[in-house]
């Protein structure tokens, strides 16, 4: 269970206010998409959640506890660019997180633990469609493949929340579509919470279960920096009850199929 809560969060840089009075509660297994015009503070919101920056006022709670004051392993992230390490092979990139966690001094695992981790990493790479590129360096991959790698790298640590900062912004339409499918499926499989920032409305409503628009609701033409942006509108794009009923239907069909597989010949029962 993961619950994110913004409590009256303000962010100011000197005298200019970027975000004002952001209040938000996000339930478990939601796909929140933050949209808004460029330069309004979408990314600042994500950075606050990442603890790359600290709110000037207010608090951000993760499962009822205030988030750490620096980025930690409970919040994974994929940026638009530079999310993977160019000096490590694809496989080594994915293995990094658990290696760091398992070996504080050398950052390397050995023997059986290393083999187990390698198998886990390969399975994840296979899931994102990069298994045959495991030995390459990121510079040899296309933009879309690098983003898949960044996803796998973040997911191996099983973060409570996955933060995506315009992750598909630099991709061509083809890889963008296949990334949409992948992210959607991963969100469903790992039943995690995702917060994504984008300026693409289509993408927002296609992927998100909840879409939040950030904008300045008040504006002083003489001093535009005196008012910050806040949540201007909040849409429930895919209501939970609908999602639950879809999931229930899918489970029911699966169960029926399994039952049919167990008793392949109806005639046998009659004998």
């Amino acid at each position: 269970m993961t619950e994110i809560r913004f409590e009256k969060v303000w962010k100011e840089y000197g005298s200019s206010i970027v975000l004002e009075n952001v209040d938000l509660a996000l339930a478990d297994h939601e796909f929140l998409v933050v949209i808004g015009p460029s330069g309004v503070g979408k990314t600042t919101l994500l950075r606050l959640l990442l603890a790359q920056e600290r709110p000037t006022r207010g608090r951000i709670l993760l499962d009822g506890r205030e988030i750490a004051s620096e980025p930690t392993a409970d919040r994974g992230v994929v940026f638009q660019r530079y999310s993977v390490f160019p000096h490590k092979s694809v496989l080594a990139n994915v293995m990094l997180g658990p290696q760091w966690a398992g070996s504080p001094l050398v950052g390397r695992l050995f023997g059986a633990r290393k083999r187990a981790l390698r198998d886990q990493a390969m399975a994840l790479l296979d899931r994102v469609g990069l298994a045959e590129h495991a030995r390459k360096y990121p510079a040899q991959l296309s933009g879309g493949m690098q983003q898949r790698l960044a996803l796998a790298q973040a997911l191996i640590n099983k973060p409570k929340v996955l933060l995506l900062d315009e992750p598909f912004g630099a991709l061509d339409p083809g890889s963008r579509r296949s990334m949409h499918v992948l992210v959607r499926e991963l969100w469903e499989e790992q039943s995690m919470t995702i917060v994504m920032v984008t300026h693409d409305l289509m993408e927002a409503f296609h992927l998100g279960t909840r879409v939040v628009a950030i904008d300045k609701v008040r504006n002083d033409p003489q001093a535009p920096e005196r008012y910050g942006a806040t949540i201007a509108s909040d849409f429930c794009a895919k209501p939970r009850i609908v999602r639950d009923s879809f999931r229930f239907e899918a489970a029911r069909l699966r169960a029926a199929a399994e039952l049919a597989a167990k008793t392949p010949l109806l005639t046998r029962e009659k004998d």
Partner: protein
Amino acid sequence: MRRIINYPPSPGLALLLGAAPFVAVGLAYLAASDARLAVDAADKLMPGVSAFYAQMSRLMTRVDPVVGQPLFWFDTWCSLARLLAGIGVSALIGIVCGVLIGFIPWLRAAFEPMIFALSLIPPLAVLPILFIAFGLGETSKLVLIVFGIAPFIVRDVALAVTAIPREQIIKAQTLGASTWQMIVDVVLPQALPRLIESVRLSLGSAWLFVIAAEAITAEGGLGYRIFLVRRYLAMDVILPYVVWITLLAFLLDFALRKLSAAAFPWTRLREA
């Protein structure tokens, strides 16, 4: 008629064009030398090929009674040892201080201005201090080289560290890395190629300091020999020594370039 910038020479022609100035300088020297020797057969300023050959074969093969080996190889060994020791120590200081100063804000705030100030001091101006403080032996020469190039390498490596995208550092933290783990697995591997580059750039200054230190006081060395025989106008020693120093510098640079390519293949990769 295309613009001249759109006429690239073919690879073979490019090689030929590159060699042409060398050949031209060599021919010009030979012509001038011949002209002078025709006027005065004992001319010392521009000796001919035969004089070079005679002098150098003597220096390379005849064992000097004082040092117990041919002078040429003794000088080469002395200078190279000083140069490599100086570069090695500077590189070590460069990578350790550069990474720490570039990566840890407190250390950056504390030491960046100091390193910058140090890099502005002309090293030869403090050479007398080094001689007074460390004596006339090898220590002062080593310190001179380190003083001359280490601040530059530290600054260059620190700059490379700060140029690592912030996203990567944030990502590493979300993967649970500690500061130590980020230094070892993220920062250091990406700073090392830059270290080799800045060592390559510093080779010229390093040679300068070796020669300068040897010119003032030494028991042997390429610079020592050049400045020793200067009194006798022995161009038949000086010119080959200069060519030899140039060749050594080129070979060091070449070796470093190959080392960088072999050790860090990822720096020169493009999407396949």
